[in-house]
C-alpha cells in the first residue's frame, strides 16, 4: 500500500470494494445519500403515471451523484429534456416535471414552455421541483406570467450537500464565492446552513462550532436561529461529529491560486474534474490489443469517474505527484505477479481460487492502465518549461517577489471584482502582514518529503495551505495559541456550543479520534482536501475530518467565476 500510513484502528474496511465509496469513513455518508434518494422517490411517486423530466442543465451533474437514470426509470420517468425556450418536445407522458434551481430567468423559460403547450394534444400535468429550495420570488414570477396555476405539485428538493466521497460533501454552487464576497448575497450561506441542519438531523447535533470569517459567523448565526425554529423536534440522534469548523474562503485567498501538486489536484488543474468525472484526451487510452482494428484512434474524450471506490485511486489521489510513479510501478509488479500465479495453479481447487480472483485482478489491471496513462499525460505537462516557470513565479510570489503583468482593457471589470474580493490590492504602502502570518503558521517548509510526507506542505511541495494549517492548529493546541494571527486575518473568529441532552453526550474511548466537519465557505481545492486527509490519517493526529464546501474548485475555475468581460 505504498508509504501511506494506515489508521491504526482496524475493522473499518476502508478499502472495501463494492460501490460503497461513501461509507468507508468514520461517518457513513450513504445515510445522507439514501435520505435524499428517498426524498426524490417520494416526490416522483406523487406524480402518478409516466413522466418526462425537463432539466435545468446545471443540475444534471450533481443529480448524477445521487440517482442514476435507472432510479428515475423505476419511477416511470420515460423521457428527459434540457430546459430551453419555446415548445417542449413531444412526449407521450402523463406528467412533465421541471427540475430547476429557483432562478427568475429559468421561470421565464418554463412559462414559455407551458404557454406554448399544444392544447389540442393530450392534457399533461405540470409539476415543478425546486432545487434546493422553493422560492416565493419565483412563484410570484410564475404567477405574473399567468402559469402558476398550471402546476399541480410545486415542491422543493433540499439537495444542499451532495455526497462526493466518504469524507467529502459539496454544494456544487458555482457562484457561491462571488455572491458571498462580491455581491453580499447570502443565498448560498443560507443553503449551507440548511444543509448543515439536514446533516445534524441525520448525524446528530454538533456540540461545538468554531469559525473564522464574516460568512462563517453568518452561517453559525443562521444555524442557531434555525435550531430555535425546530425546537419542537428534539434531535435524538447520537452525535457523530464532535466539531464543526466553518472557514471563510477569504481568510485564505492565497492557497487556491497555487498550483496543486497532488495527483488529484494536478488532474483537476490540467483537465478539470466535474462532479467527480474527468474528461481526458483519448490518445493514451487507445485499446492496445485491438490488433488490426486498432488503427483508428478514438476521437471522443475518455470520461472517467474518480472516487475512492477505485482502490488504486484512493491510494494515490492525495500523494504528491512525484510519489505516484513509484506506487504505480510497484503496483504493476504486484499485478503481473498475481497473473503469473496461474502457472502455479495445479489442482482444480487452486485454479478455482485463481478464477474467483480474476474479476478483481482484471479490474485492478484496468485501473492501473488508466492511471498510468493519466500519470503520463500529467508528466508531459509538469516537465514542460512553462509549467516550471509558472511554478517558480508562484513560489517566488509566496515569498513576496513582485511580478509585473499587464492586462487588456477587457479585464477592467474583472480587476475591480478581484479587488473587491480582496485578491488584488492597489499598492498603497500599508503594512504587509503576510510575512508574519507565514512565519507564525509555518506556511513555507523548506524540507519537504514528497514521498513520505511529515507535514501538509507536501501538497504544494513546500507551501502549507493556510486554511488547513488553521484547522490543524485548532485541533491542537487550539486557536488561543495564534490569537495574534487570527486577528490579522479578515473576519471574526468565534466558538459556539450547542448543548446536548445528557443522554446524548459522548464519552470518548481512550485513543478514539474526534471527528471534525470542516466547511469551506467559498470553495476548496483537492490539495487542501488531500492535506486534511493526511491529517486524518496521522497516527497521533487525534482528529479525523469530513470536508464540506460550497464548491470543489481550483485557481482557474475560481478566477473564472470572478471574471466579467464586457466584450
Amino acid at each position, binding site marked *: 500500500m505504498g508509504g501511506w500510513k494506515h489508521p491504526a484502528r482496524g475493522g473499518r474496511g476502508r478499502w472495501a470494494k463494492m460501490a460503497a465509496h461513501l461509507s468507508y469513513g468514520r461517518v457513513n455518508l450513504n445515510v445522507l445519500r439514501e435520505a435524499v434518494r428517498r426524498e426524490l422517490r417520494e416526490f416522483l411517486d406523487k406524480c402518478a403515471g409516466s413522466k418526462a423530466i425537463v432539466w435545468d442543465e446545471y443540475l444534471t451533474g450533481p443529480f448524477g451523484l445521487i440517482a442514476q437514470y435507472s432510479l428515475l426509470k423505476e419511477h416511470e420517468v420515460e423521457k428527459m429534456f434540457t430546459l430551453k425556450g419555446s415548445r417542449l418536445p413531444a412526449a407521450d407522458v402523463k406528467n412533465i416535471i421541471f427540475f430547476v434551481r429557483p432562478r427568475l430567468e429559468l421561470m421565464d423559460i418554463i412559462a414559455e414552455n407551458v404557454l406554448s403547450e399544444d392544447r389540442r394534444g393530450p392534457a399533461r400535468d405540470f409539476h415543478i421541483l425546486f432545487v434546493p429550495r422553493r422560492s416565493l420570488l419565483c412563484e410570484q414570477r410564475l404567477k405574473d406570467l399567468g402559469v402558476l396555476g398550471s402546476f399541480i405539485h410545486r415542491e422543493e428538493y433540499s439537495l444542499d450537500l451532495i455526497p462526493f466521497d466518504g469524507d467529502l460533501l459539496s454544494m456544487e454552487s458555482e457562484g457561491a464565492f462571488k455572491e458571498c464576497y462580491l*455581491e453580499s448575497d447570502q443565498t448560498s450561506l443560507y443553503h449551507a446552513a440548511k444543509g448543515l441542519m439536514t446533516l445534524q438531523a441525520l448525524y446528530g447535533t454538533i456540540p461545538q462550532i468554531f469559525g473564522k470569517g464574516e460568512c462563517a459567523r453568518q452561517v453559525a448565526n443562521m444555524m442557531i436561529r434555525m435550531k430555535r*425554529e425546530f425546537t419542537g*423536534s428534539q434531535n435524538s440522534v447520537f452525535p457523530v461529529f464532535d466539531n464543526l469548523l466553518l472557514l471563510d474562503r477569504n481568510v485564505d485567498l492565497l492557497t487556491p491560486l497555487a498550483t496543486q501538486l497532488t495527483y488529484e489536484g494536478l488532474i483537476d488543474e490540467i483537465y478539470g474534474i466535474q462532479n467527480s468525472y474527468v474528461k481526458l484526451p483519448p490518445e493514451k487510452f487507445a485499446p492496445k490489443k485491438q490488433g488490426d482494428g486498432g488503427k483508428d484512434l478514438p476521437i471522443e474524450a475518455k470520461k472517467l469517474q474518480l472516487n475512492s471506490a477505485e482502490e488504486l485511486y484512493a491510494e494515490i489521489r492525495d500523494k504528491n505527484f512525484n510519489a505516484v510513479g513509484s506506487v504505480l510501478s510497484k503496483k504493476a509488479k504486484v499485478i503481473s505477479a498475481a497473473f503469473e500465479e496461474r502457472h502455479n495453479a495445479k489442482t482444480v481447487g487452486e485454479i478455482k481460487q485463481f478464477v474467483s480472483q480474476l474479476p478483481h485482478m482484471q479490474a485492478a489491471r484496468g485501473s492501473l492502465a488508466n492511471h498510468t496513462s493519466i500519470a503520463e499525460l500529467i508528466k508531459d505537462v509538469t516537465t514542460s518549461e512553462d509549467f516550471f516557470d509558472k511554478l517558480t513565479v508562484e513560489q517566488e510570489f509566496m515569498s513576496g517577489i513582485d511580478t509585473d503583468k499587464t492586462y487588456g*482593457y*477587457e479585464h477592467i471589470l474583472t480587476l*475591480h471584482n478581484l479587488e473587491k474580493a480582496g485578491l488584488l490590492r492597489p499598492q498603497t504602502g500599508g503594512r504587509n502582514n503576510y510575512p508574519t502570518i507565514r512565519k507564525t503558521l509555518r506556511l513555507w517548509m523548506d524540507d519537504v518529503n514528497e514521498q513520505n510526507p511529515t507535514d501538509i506542505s507536501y501538497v504544494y511541495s513546500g507551501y502549507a495551505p493556510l486554511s488547513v494549517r488553521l484547522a490543524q492548529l485548532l485541533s491542537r493546541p487550539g486557536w488561543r495559541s495564534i490569537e495574534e494571527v487570527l486577528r490579522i486575518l479578515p473576519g471574526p473568529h468565534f466558538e459556539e456550543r450547542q448543548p446536548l441532552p445528557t443522554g446524548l453526550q459522548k464519552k470518548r474511548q481512550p485513543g478514539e479520534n474526534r471527528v471534525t466537519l470542516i466547511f469551506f465557505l467559498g470553495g476548496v481545492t483537492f490539495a487542501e482536501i488531500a492535506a486534511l486527509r493526511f491529517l486524518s490519517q496521522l497516527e497521533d493526529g487525534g482528529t479525523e475530518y469530513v470536508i464540506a464546501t460550497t464548491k470543489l474548485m481550483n485557481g482557474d475555475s475560481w478566477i473564472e467565476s470572478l471574471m466579467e468581460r464586457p466584450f
Partner: protein
Amino acid sequence: MDCYTANWNPLGDSAFYRKYELYSMDWDLKEELRDCLVAAAPYGGPIALLRNPWRKEKAASVRPVLDIYSASGMPLANLLWKSGPVVSLGWSAEEELLCVQEDGVVLVYGLHGDFRRHFSMGNEVLQNRVLDARIFHTEFGSGVAILTGAHRFTLSANVGDLKLRRMPEVPGLQTAPSCWTTLFQERVAHILLAVGPDLYLLDHATCSSVTLPGLAPGVSSFLQMAVSFTYRHLALFTDTGYIWMGTTSLKEKLCEFNCNIRAPPKQMVWCSRPRSKERAVVVAWERRLMVVGDAPESIQFVLDEDSYLVPELDGVRIFSRSTHEFLHEVPAASEEIFKIASMAPGALLLEAQKEYEKESQKADEYLREIQELGQLTQAVQQCIEAAGHEHRPDMQKSLLRAASFGKCFLDRFSSESFVRMCQDLRVLNAIRDYHIGIPLTYSQYKQLTIQVLLDRLVLRRLYPLAIQICEYLRLPEVQGVSRILAHWACYKVQQKDVSDEDVARAINQKLGDTPGVSYSDIAARAYGCGRTELAIKLLEYEPRSGEQVPLLLKMKRSKLALSKAIESGDTDLVFTVLLHLKNELNRGDFFMTLRNQPMALSLYRQFCKHQELETLKDLYNQDDNHQELGSFHIRASYASEERIEGRVAALQTAADAFYKAKNEFAAKATEDQMRLLRLQRRLEDELGGQFLDLSLHDTVTTLILGGHNKRAEQLARDFRIPDKRLWWLKLTALADLGDWEELEKFSKSKKSPIGYLPFVEICMKQHNKYEAKKYASRVGPEQKVKALLLVGDVAQAADVAIEHRNEAELSLVLSNCTGATDGATADKIQRARAQAQKK
C-alpha cells in the same frame, strides 16, 4: 355476582345484552323530544335540539331556539334561530353542527353555537326545496344527502371538499320514497330507497332495481331502513311487521324476525360490536324498545318516556328527558368472567383475589386450579380486558386488582397491557365525568384515538383537562401540550375585553418557548379577529421567519417584515418583501428604505442587474457610488451601444465617474481605451481588416503581422508602450511570421533592451537553430551558457562555464551532457571542477 348479571338479557343462546345508565340528564327540557329536531353526534358527542321547528299547525311567529348540550345534558350553547326553516340537523366528524335548510343552504355551527360558514347544495335543490336530508359519515369525512321535492337525490360525500353529485332519476317515480338511506361501498356513496314494494339502488351513474334475498312475500311497503355503523349491514322493516337483516351488498340474508307489530317504528338502528358474530337491531316505538337478532325471541324494554336512539360503534345510546343509557352486547371477556357459574380462568382469578382479600385459603385453591390448567396468563388478560369494558370504576378496580394479583404469580408477564389499561381507564373516567360528559366506551376510545379525543376536549375549551391528560400519558409535547396551548391561545385572542398587552403577555407566559407552538397561527387568528396590534406583538415570539414574514406583509407591516426577513438570512424571503415594498411605496421611499438595510440593498442590486438595469443606475446614483457607476457604463458601452461614437460616449461617462470615485487608474485606462477605439476605427478605415476591440498589444502585433511597422511604432509611442515590451511584441510577431530577415534587421536596429536570449529562445521555439545561433553569440556573458545550451552547443557552453568558474553553470551544462558525444565535455568539466577545488 347474581346482582351483577341482573341487567343481562339473553338473545338466543349465545349473546347477552345489557343496558345501563350513563347519566341522569341535567337539562331542563320544556318541550318533548318529539317536538324537536334532534341530532346527537356519535362517539359520545354533543346533542343539538332545535325546538319549535316549522310545523304546519304552529304559527311561524315565534322564533325557534337552537340548543346544544353535552351528552350529560350540560348546556353548551343556546341561540335564537334567525335563518330559514330547517329540515334536518346533523353533526360532522369534526363535531360541527350542519343545519340543512329547506332551500338547500347548509349552515355550519361550532359546538358553542358559533357560526362557521355556509354552503349551498345547488340550484336544483334550491328550486325544488329539501324534502328530507341525512348527514352521514365515511372514511373521507362527513357527507350530506338531500331528497328534493322533485324526488331526486343530491349528495356530497365530503362537506370539507364540497363536490355536489346529482344522483340519477328513478324512472317513473311520482311519490316520495317511504324510506331511504345512504350506503357506502367501495369508497363510493350510494342511495338505497324504497317505493312501495320496490327497492332501488342509485350510484353516480345508474339506477338499478334491487331485491332482498330471502325476503318473505306479502310486503307492500318498507317502513324503515338502518345501515350499521361500519356500512356492512342493512336492516329493513316492512309493513308486515317483518324485519329483514342482511349485508349491504344485498347478496346475503343474515336472519329475519317477525315482531308482529305493524305500526311504523320511530327509529331503527343496528346494535353490534366489532368482531362479534352477533347481529342485532334495536327498534323503537313510542313506548317500546325491542332488540332483535338471529333468535326466535326478542328482548323487550318499556320506554317510560319519549326517547332517542344514537347508534355507536359498539352499541346504542338512548336518551330521554331524564336519562341517558347505553345498550350493548356484553363483551366476550365480561361474559366469560361474570356469566353465572363460569369456570373461565378470569372468573376464577377474580374469585381467588376476593378470597385472598378475605384472607381465605380458598384463594390458593382457585389459583392452583388456574395454574394447573396453565391459564394464568389468559386469566390476567381476561381481567384486564373486562376492566376496560366496565363503566363503573368500582368494577374496573376490582377486575384490575384481580389482574394485578394474578400477575404476581407469573414470571414473564409484560405489565405493559396492564399499565396501559390503567391509564386508559383513568382518562376514560375523567372524560365520562358528568361535567365533561363524553361517555366513550373503551372500544370507541381506541377507535377514535387519543389525538382526536384531545381535539374534542380542545373544541369544548377544556384546556386544563386536555393538558393534564397529555402530561399524564407523557405524550410528546408537539402532539400534546403544545398543541393544546396553541389552541388555548387562539381562543384567548378572541377575548376582546382584554387588552392587547395583557393577552400577549398571558399567552407568552403560558406558552413561552414551548416546542411546536406556532405563534404565527395564533397571530393569524388575532389578525382575523381584527386585532392587528396584538398579532404583531405575538409575531415577535415567532422564531420561524418563513411564517412571520408573510403574515406581516398581509397586515401591511412591510418594513417590519423586511427586517425580520433579513434577520432570517433567507434571501428568498427578503426578495419577496422587497418586491412587495416596491409596489407598495413610491420610488423615493422605497430607495430610502433600502438605504437603511444594506443587505436588502445589495440583494436588490443583484435583482436589478438581471432584471432592471436602469433602476440599478438610479441606485448607484443615489448612493454616489461612482466606482460602480463607472463599471455600469462600461457594461452599457459594450452591451447596448452599437455605434463607435455611442460606445466612446458611454466610456467617457464611465471615465468621468471613475474620476469622481478617485480611481485614477480606471479613469486613465478608460480614456486610453477610448483613444484606442478611435484609433482602431481609423486603422480599419485606412488599412481594412479587424482592429476593433483588440487589446493594445494585439493591435500592435496585428500591425506588425500586417507589415505596418511604422504604424506599430507610432502606436507604441502614442500609448507609451515601454521599449522592453515593444521589443517583445515585435520579436514574437516577426518570429511568428517567420520573417527572419526583418527580425535580424530589427535586432540590429539598436541595442536590444531585453537582451538577446529571448531571440535565441524564440527562434528555437520555431525550430530554427540556424537563426538562433546568430543571436547566441550576441547574448551577454551572464546568459551565454544558457543560450549556448539552447542551441545545443554543449562544448562551447562548457568552455564558457569553465571560464566563468561558475558552479551553477557547470552543473547546468553537466546535466545537459547526454550520450557518448558529450562524454569528453563532461570529463572536461569534472576536471575543471577538481582544479577549482584544489585552489
